[in-house]
C-alpha cells in the first residue's frame, strides 16, 4: 500500500517530511517508457541517510517498488537497479496509478550507529532495535494520471451522421466528447474554426463541471477543492487539476460559469474576436 500521509510509527522513519532524520529526504522520480509489450519504469531516487544507504548496499535492507493501479505489485530492487519492466498484459495504466518506494529491513537492525538521526534520538537510539521486515522509510508518491494516451486533451470531436440530434455532448472517461451530426457544424476548413466551436466547448465544459459537482460533491451541490479527495476518474481528475492550477478553491452549481471563465483561457473573448473578424471581412 501507498502512504499519502505521515503514518505514525513507534520508531524513526525516513520520509521527505520527517523530523527524525537530519536530511529528511527519500525522493523518487519516475519516467515511463514503453514498447509494444512492456512498460519500463525508470527510477531516479535518492535516500538522504548514509546509514540506510549502507544497509541497502550490504543487503541488510531492501528497496521495494510498489505500484498500485488495478491491484498492487511489489518488486524488490537490487541495490543499484534503475528500472523495472512490467508487461502490458500485467499492468494497466489507464486508471490512476501510484508508485512509491519503501525500504524494509532484511534482518534485525540496531540504530546505535545511525548518525543520521536528529539529536533528539541521541540519548536512546541504542535502544532502538528493528526486527526483520520492518519499514525504514518511504518516498514521495509518483502519480500517473491515467491519461497516457491523452495527457492534456480535454475535448474530442467526433462525426456521427446517425445522431438523432444535431449535436451531442458526451462525457467520456478521459475526455468530453462532442458528437456532430454534420461535418459543416464543426466549421472545418474555415479560418478560426477552433474559435467558432466555442459554444459547443462551453456546453461541454458546463456539462462536465455539473457532473464533477454531483460526483465529487456528494449531494451537497458544492465541492471544496482544497479539502476534497482527489478524483479517481480521468476526466474529473483533469478538471480538478485545471481548477486547482487556476487557484479555484470551490466549485458549486452556483459558480460554474465563473469557473469556466477562469479555466478557459479567454475562450469567449477569442470567440467574439473571431466573429467580429468575420463580420468585418465578410459579405
Amino acid at each position, binding site marked *: 500500500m501507498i502512504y499519502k500521509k505521515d503514518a505514525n510509527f513507534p520508531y524513526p522513519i525516513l520520509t521527505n517530511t520527517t523530523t527524525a532524520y537530519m536530511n529528511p529526504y527519500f525522493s523518487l522520480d519516475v519516467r515511463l517508457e514503453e514498447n509494444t509489450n512492456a512498460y519500463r519504469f525508470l527510477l531516479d531516487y535518492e535516500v538522504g541517510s548514509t546509514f540506510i544507504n549502507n544497509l541497502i548496499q550490504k543487503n541488510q535492507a531492501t528497496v*521495494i517498488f510498489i505500484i498500485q493501479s488495478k*491491484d498492487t505489485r511489489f518488486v524488490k530492487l537490487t541495490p543499484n537497479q534503475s528500472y523495472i519492466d512490467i508487461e502490458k*498484459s500485467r499492468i494497466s495504466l489507464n486508471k490512476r496509478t501510484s508508485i512509491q518506494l519503501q525500504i*524494509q529491513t532484511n534482518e534485525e537492525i540496531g540504530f546505535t550507529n545511525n548518525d543520521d538521526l536528529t539529536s533528539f534520538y541521541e540519548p536512546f537510539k541504542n535502544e532502538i532495535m528493528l526486527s526483520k521486515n520492518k519499514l525504514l522509510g518511504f518516498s514521495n508518491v509518483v502519480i500517473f494520471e491515467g491519461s497516457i494516451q491523452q495527457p492534456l486533451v480535454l475535448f474530442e470531436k467526433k462525426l456521427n451522421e446517425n445522431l*438523432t440530434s444535431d449535436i451531442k455532448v458526451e462525457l467520456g472517461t478521459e475526455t468530453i466528447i462532442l458528437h456532430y451530426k454534420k461535418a459543416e457544424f464543426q466549421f472545418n476548413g474555415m479560418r478560426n474554426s477552433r474559435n467558432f466551436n466555442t459554444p459547443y466547448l462551453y456546453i461541454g465544459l458546463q456539462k462536465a463541471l455539473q457532473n464533477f459537482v454531483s460526483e465529487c460533491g456528494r449531494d451537497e451541490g458544492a465541492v471544496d477543492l482544497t479539502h476534497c479527495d482527489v478524483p479517481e476518474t480521468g476526466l474529473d481528475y483533469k478538471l480538478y487539476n485545471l481548477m486547482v492550477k487556476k487557484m479555484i478553491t470551490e466549485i458549486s452549481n452556483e459558480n460554474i460559469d465563473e469557473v469556466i471563465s477562469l479555466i478557459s483561457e479567454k475562450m469567449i473573448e477569442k470567440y467574439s474576436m473571431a466573429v467580429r473578424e468575420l463580420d468585418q471581412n465578410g459579405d
Partner: protein
Amino acid sequence: MEIRLLAKGYKNNVQFYEDFLEDKIIGNEDYFSEEYVTITDIPNFPFYMGKESGEGRNKAFLEAFQIIAKYYILTDRELHLDERFWHSLLVTKKRDYILEKYPAVKEGFSEFKKIVIKNFDWENYIYKCVLAAEYIEDIGENEIEKSHLYQLVLDNLDVYNYIIKYPIFRNAEFVVKILMIIDELNISKIMKANIKNRPDLGKDTRYGRQVIYELNKNYPIVMAPMMEKEDLKKEVLKALSYYYDISSIGRELVSIN
C-alpha cells in the same frame, strides 16, 4: 476478431436489455461507441457461477480459469481488466451462448444485470477468474503446481474473495502465499468456518476473513503483503490465534512466541 465497444449508458437501460433479447443490439448505432478492440480468439467460457454449487461450480471455475489463462490474459491488461470490453464481448458475440447457458437472463432486467453486465469488481466472476489466472500462470512453476493452485483458490474461495477486496492484498505473491500457507497448515476448513459466539464481530464472520482483517490492520507495522512465506505463516497463525485455539494446528505455534 474485432469487438466493437458499447457506448456508455447501457448499464441501466431497460430498452438495451429488451433489444438484447430480441437480437436488436447489433446494427443499432445508438448502442455503440466509435471504439474497437481486436483480439485473436474469443472462446466461450462459463462466466457466471452464482447459481452453481459443489462439483458443478468447481468444474465451471476450472474451465473458466483454463480458457481465460490460455486466450484472454495475454492481451494488454487495459483490455482484459476493462469492464466495457467484457460487457461488449458478451452482448455482441455471446448472445446465443448466454441464452442457452444462462436462461435466467430472460426472467428480467435484474437477472441480466447480475449475470451479463455485472459490475467488474471482486464480486464479478470474470474478474475473479482473470486475477486468479494471471497470478497463478505467472507464479506456478509447472502445470501440476498450477492446477494445484487453482484447486486451492476453489477450496478457499471465501478467503480469496476477501483478499481481492483489499487493494494492498490484491497482488499475485500474497494471494499465492496465503493459499499455500492454508494448504500447508491444513486449515482450509477452519478458515472458512463461521466464528460462533462472537456477536461483536458482526454477522457471518469467518476465521479466514478475520485473519486477513488483522493483517490489514497491522500493516504497515507488519508488512504482510511482501513477507516471505515462512514469516507470513507466523503472522497468519498469530492472527488466527486471536480467534481460534491454534494449539491443535501444530508445531508452528512454538515458533511464533
